[in-house]
């Protein structure tokens, strides 16, 4: 397999449940060594996609290959090669941290001699060394996720499929978690991770934006952010409501969103429109503290791209 050919590839992948089409003709290609982020709100179809790729669901239509194996016919051959981490805690609450690790090491045929070394390393990696004898159900949310990741990594999978690994985890643990993923990425593991948090997208090498069971954009985070038209300016005004109503009707203003105490205004061209905006605000007596170009965030890119897609259809 040449290095550039995708390690995960789907063609028109579709999953139809009784009432919902959770994944709708999805075309996705992840190359070896990528840290690929599947971004989208709840209900976008991320979990179903990951479950399909892990061989846990039957495919309704289309096809997919993982590590060269066809998902329909060879889903069992895929399993030793992947590490799958479910969204909900799905380890054994009755077993201790160490016992959970041992259980999965045996199911993945990790040899006895390698097990000890890997277990120690993973425990340290996940910061669970002190909690080896604690039962799974007594761990905190973040520790549960880290234990789940450790269990997923015990057989050194080529491919990691992680379903919202940071949901319900505090910000500090989240950062730590992403540090681990980055490290794995640097070691060459292919990672497909889903997340509802847009800010996590920037730590991926490539992201796919998902909504309604479809991928509507797929590129590097940089390209996605650059891909949205116009410029973004951040405006801090005392009376943001009024400022918003004034700007809304101005020519060249594409979109206004409120972020904390600032309005993010997307305009077709900052150079062309900024003077006019300043003028209008002053004319209407709106006090503003700052008005300067702002970097595009993934969230804005997501919303804007989604808006464009809706307009198209």
């Amino acid at each position, binding site marked *: 397999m040449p290095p550039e050919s995708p390690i995960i590839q789907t063609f028109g992948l579709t999953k139809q449940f009784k009432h919902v089409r959770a994944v709708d003709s999805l075309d996705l290609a992840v190359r070896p060594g990528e840290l690929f982020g599947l971004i989208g709100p709840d209900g976008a179809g991320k979990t179903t996609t990951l*479950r399909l790729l892990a061989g846990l669901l039957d495919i309704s239509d289309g096809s997919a290959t993982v590590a060269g194996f066809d998902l329909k016919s060879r889903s069992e051959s895929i399993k030793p090669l992947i590490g799958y981490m*479910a969204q*909900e805690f*799905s380890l*054994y609450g009755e*077993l201790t941290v160490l016992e959970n690790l041992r259980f999965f090491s045996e*199911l993945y045929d990790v040899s006895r001699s390698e097990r000890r070394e890997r277990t120690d390393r993973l425990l340290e990696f996940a910061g669970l060394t002190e909690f080896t004898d604690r039962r799974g159900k007594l761990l905190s949310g973040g520790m549960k996720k880290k234990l789940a990741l450790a*269990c997923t990594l015990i057989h050194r999978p080529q491919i990691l499929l992680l379903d919202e690994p940071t949901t319900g985890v505090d910000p500090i643990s989240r950062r730590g978690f992403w540090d681990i993923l980055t490290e794995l990425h640097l070691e060459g593991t292919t990672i497909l991770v889903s997340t509802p948090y847009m800010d996590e997208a920037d730590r991926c090498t490539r992201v796919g934006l998902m909504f309604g069971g479809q991928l509507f954009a797929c590129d590097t985070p940089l390209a996605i952010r650059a891909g949205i038209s116009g410029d973004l300016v951040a405006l801090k005004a005392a009376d943001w409501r009024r400022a918003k109503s004034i700007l809304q009707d101005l020519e060249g203003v594409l979109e206004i969103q409120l972020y904390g105490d600032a309005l993010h205004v997307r305009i077709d061209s900052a150079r062309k429109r900024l003077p006019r905006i300043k003028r209008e605000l002053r004319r209407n007596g709106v006090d503003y503290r700052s008005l300067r170009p702002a970097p595009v965030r993934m969230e804005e890119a997501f919303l804007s791209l989604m808006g464009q897609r809706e307009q198209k259809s």
Partner: protein
Amino acid sequence: MAFRHLMAVARKELAHILRDGWTLSLVLFTPLLVLILMAYALSADIQHVPIAVLDRDRSPASRTFVAQITAGDDLELYATVEDLGAVEDLFTRGEIKGALIIAPTFAADVASLKGMPIQIIIDGTEPETGGFAVEQIGRRAAEFANAAIVNQLAGAAGESLQTIDLRVRAWYNPSLEPRVDLIPGLISLVLAFPALSAALTLAREREHGTLEQLLATPIGRGDLLLGKIVPYIIVGLINVILITAVARVWFRVPFNGNFALYFGLSALFMFAALSMGVLVGMFMRTQAAALALSFLLLFFPAFFLTGIFFPIVAMPEIARLEAMGLPGTHYAIITRGVFLPGVGIEVLWPYAVMLIFLGVVFTALAALFFRKKIG
């Protein structure tokens, strides 16, 4: 098949039992406790059956007759009443199971060998005790009549009404004590309890969401299903030892067979019963569902259709067929055979073959229908 995978699942399942003292003691001792209680309750001989007497004759003969009827431990003179209404009342209240009505002409009729004008009434809602009462009263009435006839008929002195002498020998259980054979029968019932526990295990994984992670691993279906069974086979075999010991030492049920053989056949039974349990609970998403289903498909049939309380030969065809598909039926035969006649494999092999057959079929069906998919 990977033995290591199987054992990993088995160890994890065993941890579920061992982690919680409550679960462990319930799993280990429920069969034993149920056996002990039921053995005490069910194995007693029928005795002290309350009857009422309505003596319309009130003659010395009738009084002797009544005294003779109620002489033993089996029938108890609960009340002497004056009219039929009182008898009916006692029956309705459930206070008596039988009644003896003696006609006013009793003494005269017996003396003249005209006959013995008595009537026995029983409570048809409890034929067990009612039938027993009829039998006992009838037997003593016959003795009484016999004596009367013999006394009256000249030249027939020393004769007996009973010309055919039945020499009854009940093998393996000379006094036909229910205790002796009911306990081996009950053993096969209580040892089916672990199968109900096994029915829960896959539903538990589903309910707790742990199945998702498990199915993403390369474990084979057979290993997963068998791994779920192994701990309960161990539990079941511990129960076999405990229960056999209690039956032997406490209830003094003879054990005439070979214990090693019994142990081995018990393992076969466990295999068959537990695979059936796993198969029954396999598709349920919640433990409640698995439980409800296993009560219907495992417990009640094991109770009524395996020939413990009602002989299988007397059941209708369909029920007999279903009984053949229940591991407990074959195991009940094995248990009784090993305990009482003490027969060996030369007699029991067909049942052992059936157990292996059922176990393999249930496991194969489970492996066939179990898919490593969620939802």
